[in-house]
């Protein structure tokens, strides 16, 4: 498969997400969506869960989606798109419509994916529907005002895991949904970030080409929820990857491989320093929390390297 990622060609193709959406200035979600949809190409049917993207791209009577798009509820974009995909297969099989090579993709936040929607995605993956599920992971329930999800990192401030006299922020390490998806034995799983657009678009092309379900977990920094200046969004993605907080890898038919190995591997403290949601950890009494976080990141990184047979 030839991966043509020269921006010359795709910059001539129309954006499938039209401007005029109401996402915050500097939001990484539309950045990721634009890149992903350019990589998929047309014809594509898109589903969104309830969340920032859904409400800001379709405030009636406006819609930013130049392709067919559906939203039904918060937890169920996977089931909804699976229903559409099943209908497509049924109609083509019965000769009621011709096979136009329609692709199906879901966009959902980490809240919808890690928490409330986990059952629905698991069912969809297990049944083997041919679709791509993209988790736009900004590590909290941002649309409702920055509440913790199981994707929120250890020690982070959110409105439901606040730092105060009795607590230091979120007390649990985040769940590894990418690994959970890989353990569903689906053809393609990956972790990506929109700063590394070539990597994200290559992963998208592989994902959408496989004959079954695919899952990509994309880190999308949120300047409101993470508390940093909006122009630094891309820089923050780099920092997440270079500190190994957000490794870039893929799992193809169960085989893990790293797509980026940071050199040098930067300390987690650099990552924490860049955002206001970790500001409270920078006190001497909270130094052990930072140590715990470094230990945890190192452990996850080591585990990943072993899986990727790089260790």
């Amino acid at each position, binding site marked *: 498969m030839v991966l043509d990622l020269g921006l010359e060609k795709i*910059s001539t193709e129309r954006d499938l997400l*039209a*401007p005029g959406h109401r*996402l915050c*200035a*500097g939001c990484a979600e539309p950045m990721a969506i634009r890149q992903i949809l350019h990589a998929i190409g047309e014809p594509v049917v898109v589903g969104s869960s309830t969340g920032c993207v859904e409400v800001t791209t379709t405030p009636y009577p406006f*819609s930013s989606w130049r392709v067919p798009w559906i939203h039904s509820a918060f937890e169920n974009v996977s089931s909804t798109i699976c229903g559409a995909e099943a209908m497509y297969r049924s109609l083509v099989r019965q000769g009621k419509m011709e096979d136009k090579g329609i692709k199906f993709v879901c966009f959902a936040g980490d809240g919808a994916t890690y928490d409330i929607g986990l059952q629905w995605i698991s069912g969809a993956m297990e049944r083997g529907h041919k679709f791509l599920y993209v988790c736009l992971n900004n590590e909290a329930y941002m649309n409702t005002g920055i509440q913790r999800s199981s994707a929120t990192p250890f020690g982070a401030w959110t409105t439901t895991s606040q730092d105060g006299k009795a607590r230091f922020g979120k007390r649990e390490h985040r769940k590894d949904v990418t690994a959970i998806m890989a353990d569903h034995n689906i053809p393609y799983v990956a972790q990506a970030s929109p700063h590394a657009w070539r990597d994200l678009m290559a992963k998208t092309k592989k994902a959408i080409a496989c004959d079954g379900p695919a899952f990509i977990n994309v880190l999308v920094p949120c300047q409101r929820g993470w508390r940093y200046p909006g*122009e630094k*969004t891309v820089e923050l993605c780099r920092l997440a990857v270079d500190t190994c907080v957000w490794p870039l890898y893929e799992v193809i038919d169960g085989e893990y491989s790293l797509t980026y190995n940071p050199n040098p591997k930067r300390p987690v403290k650099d990552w924490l320093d860049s955002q206001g949601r970790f500001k409270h950890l920078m006190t001497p009494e909270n130094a052990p929390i930072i140590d715990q976080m470094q230990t945890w990141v190192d452990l996850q990184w080591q585990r990943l390297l072993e899986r990727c047979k790089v260790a």
Partner: protein
Amino acid sequence: MALKSWKEILIGGMITDVGNSINYKTGDWRSYRPIWDDKKCNNCKVCWVYCPDGSITIKDGVMIGMDLDHCKGCGICAQECPQKAIKMMEETKLREAVK
């Protein structure tokens, strides 16, 4: 835009004028405007691939400017341009200068 009655709109909240968000000018949101130096620009299109609002205008493979109707002034393009060809300047000052 005058609000329509229930008899005038499609059922189920369906929107068939897809992509009509382009008529909503988010350029009003700006506090800072990107100013682009076309002499420094080498058409790498990194700004285009990063812009959250699709507001980098490309014509015939050449970057010709910003869509100021929709650019929210986030500053990512200025931050990421490898040629440092984009600077962010205060919107109000620029508007006053025009008067």
